[in-house]
């Protein structure tokens, strides 16, 4: 008899394709949304953790201006800029391994028929060491090029792809603003940065070239330093602060007119932002699960109302209440299971696609899959079962008369 009941349930599902599909859709959406969002959230978490790691924690950046986070001076009023001599002085400190003063300028870069707008960064040979870059083809700047305004450049993967396609760019020429330079090196791709920016979208030129020929200024906008191994960032910051205060003749007790940011602080902020984001995604996921649940509930309720006559017919021809109920329960279980499985597949698929697109790791979580699945199945079964039980308890004649 139980197989007969299962058969009846499957027949009923097949007969009412639209209703079955709609019920399943509710489950699919609920499950897929939760799985996709939590998986993407987890992936971005991991991605942030990875980029925080790749930042290196023994890198400090010194910028002119008051204390603040992010680019540009946070305090008002004119700030005294840095120059390359500040960078040279920092390089003398024993706690510092590499110094990388930079300036940057937004330029249209042209090579042959292709062009793009990108940030041209004036840098020295220390840039690659501080930023942890590897040259995959050609070479970086040498020390002689640091000091001369040579017409050479090193480009990132995105710039290569846009301007030169798949070809090896080394030895080719490109023009940035008024400056034509020879490409001498290609950097290994790093992917998206901690803020989602494309780290490979860059053109490096010797800092003097950018200062004189693109900006017409001797200023240096920031100086990043890599500390020597075993040197804590606190100690490095202390020594840098002392040196800079001395060089800038800041009276004792007066506030710094420059700021030192520690990558560890950036990492902290990023991790904080990320946990807020993950929390937000989770609440959105919870809401979609709820909405999916309400969808399932609705269709189940409507379908039982619609099917009360059917229940009446079955009771009239001699079905026991229990048999009718079992049939409805089997229907709800089948719908929830199939919908849940499709939801898991769709959710993981969406998460996979989004991870690829956003270049973050694909991080499926077994507990999320199970939880979403269980919740939807529970709602599907509950709302298939309880209204059906109510209907199966009606007197057959009331069920038959139901309009």
């Amino acid at each position: 008899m139980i197989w007969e009941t299962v058969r009846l349930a499957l027949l009923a599902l097949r007969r009412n394709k639209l209703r079955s599909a709609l019920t399943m859709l509710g489950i699919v959406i609920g499950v897929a949304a939760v799985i996709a969002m939590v998986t993407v959230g987890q992936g971005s978490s991991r991605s942030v953790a990875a980029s925080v790691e790749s930042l290196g924690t023994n890198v400090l950046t010194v910028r002119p201006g008051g204390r603040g986070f992010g680019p540009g001076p946070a305090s008002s009023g004119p700030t005294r800029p840095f120059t390359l001599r500040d960078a040279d002085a920092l390089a003398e400190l024993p706690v510092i391994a590499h110094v990388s003063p930079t300036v940057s300028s937004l330029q249209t870069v042209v090579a042959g028929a292709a062009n793009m707008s990108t940030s041209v960064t004036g840098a020295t040979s220390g840039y690659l060491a501080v930023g942890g870059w590897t040259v995959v083809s050609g070479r970086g700047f040498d020390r002689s090029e640091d000091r001369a305004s040579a017409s050479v450049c090193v480009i990132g993967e995105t710039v290569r792809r846009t301007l030169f396609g798949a070809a090896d760019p080394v030895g080719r020429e490109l023009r940035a603003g008024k400056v034509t330079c020879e490409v001498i090196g290609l950097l290994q791709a790093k992917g998206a940065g901690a803020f989602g920016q494309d780290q490979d979208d860059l053109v490096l030129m010797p800092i003097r070239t950018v200062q004189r020929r693109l900006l017409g200024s001797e200023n240096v906008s920031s100086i990043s330093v890599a500390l020597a191994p075993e040197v804590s960032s606190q100690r490095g910051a202390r020594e840098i602060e002392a040196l800079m205060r001395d060089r800038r003749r800041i009276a004792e007790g007066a506030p710094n007119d420059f700021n030192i940011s520690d990558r560890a602080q950036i990492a902290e902020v990023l991790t904080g932002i990320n946990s807020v984001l993950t929390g937000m995604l989770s609440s959105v996921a919870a809401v979609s699960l709820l909405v999916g649940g309400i969808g399932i509930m609705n269709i189940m309720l409507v379908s039982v109302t619609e099917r009360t006559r059917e229940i009446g017919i079955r009771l009239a021809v001699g079905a026991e209440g229990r048999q009718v109920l079992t049939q409805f329960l089997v229907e709800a279980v089948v719908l929830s299971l199939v919908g849940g499985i499709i939801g898991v597949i769709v959710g993981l698929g969406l998460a996979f696609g989004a991870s690829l697109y956003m270049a973050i790791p694909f991080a499926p979580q077994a507990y999320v899959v199970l939880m979403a699945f269980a919740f939807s199945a529970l709602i599907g079964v509950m709302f298939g079962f309880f209204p059906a039980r109510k209907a199966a308890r009606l007197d057959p004649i009331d069920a038959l008369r139901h309009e």
Partner: protein
Amino acid sequence: MSPAASRPPLIELADVCRVYGSGETEVRALDHTDLVIQQGEFVAIMGPSGSGKSTAMNTIGLLDRPSSGRYLFNGVEVQGLDRDQRALLRRHFLGFVFQGFNLLPRTSALENVELPLIYKGMPRPERIARARAALAKVGLEGREDHDPSQLSGGQQQRVAIARALVGDPMVILADEPTGNLDSHRSHEIMKLLQKLNREDGITIVMVTHEDDVAAYARRLVIFADGRIRSDSAMAERATA
């Protein structure tokens, strides 16, 4: 004495009341009703709406429960049975034909007729054979795979009759079986019921409000205000 009198009547309602609601809004649909129907009878029940005829029918069909009084089915008291026991009785001894046909939508004629047999626990091949035979009996061979929506009203009612008779019931209860049909189809349906009564000995109890439909029966019971106002044998109508 006829041989039928030596065994208990098929249906015996004794002092049955059915009350809906309570207090001010109380409706007494059956008011101390007595009714006896013997095996093999063809009874038409008539009466104005609200006279209790449908309630009597549903009570006989074990779809509704009397508030008080006794109901003996084939000599056995059934008024106190629970839902499942009444379902078993319906399954094995009763067949229903309704005014609104009450077929399962989007379900073939064959599957509709098969339905009562599923609940009897009959194996599938036998079910299908018997459902086909029942459809043939009501003149619907070749329509087994049609949905109700592909059939005319008369054909749908024939499917319903096939469903009622497929389980070899002792009695078929028909609640205004021609209420939704034109007069031509009504006569076809009535001839079919008459044939089942004469040739297969199935007891038929039918509620109707049309005189020419009631004329097919051999006994006419008229209800008024929850009581039987008249109960008379009728001359058998010749089959045209």
